[in-house]
């Protein structure tokens, strides 16, 4: 069985493409998120912090509240 080496340019292009994809994904995943000015910071919810949402709901119990569940894309 014989293998033919890939052209060096093609290898570098593939590596560069892979790096770009990895960097883009990392940026997408970990870039700092900022809510608009005047709002409370973005709150991360999990099983242990669901109470944060309840607290926010109850903290303004004197007001009408709207709860919306949305997909980010």
């Amino acid at each position, binding site marked *: 069985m014989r293998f033919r080496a890939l052209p060096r340019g093609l290898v570098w292009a593939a590596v560069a493409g892979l790096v770009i994809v990895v960097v883009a*994904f990392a940026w*997408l*995943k970990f*870039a700092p*998120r*900022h*809510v*608009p000015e*005047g*709002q*409370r910071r*973005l*709150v*991360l*919810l*999990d*099983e242990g912090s*669901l109470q*944060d*949402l*309840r607290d*926010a*709901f*109850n903290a*303004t*119990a*004197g*007001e*009408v*509240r*709207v*709860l*919306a*569940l*949305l*997909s*980010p*894309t």
Partner: protein
Amino acid sequence: MRGASALERLIEESPDARLRVLVVWEPVLASDVAPPLNGALALLHDRRVVQFWDPGRVVSADLVRTVNEDPGRYGFDDALPEDFIVWDAVAVFAAGDRWEGDLPVPAHHGGPVVDDIDETRKAIAGTMRAP
């Protein structure tokens, strides 16, 4: 995204209303691999908005659990499937309602948000007028 924009426009219609908007972003679509980007967060820029990122969809799961304990209380004929995902949905709660254990019964709920925005507007107005 259209739901978020529609919701923001609705809030802006009543700049002085005593209103709090809790927005829970959750991954549902295949493209939802990360928290909402700043552009998405900026769609809801009113100061009365509080935004949450719920990567494990714990809010949806809690709502399904709550509804299934008593579907009729929340206006459902039957229990929801255990794996049901509550998303692109909106609910309006009257002043005075508190969330202790189970979510209180909303004055209105519906979705998709962009299609339900007129009903949401009416519910907010009606709830504001209620004594």
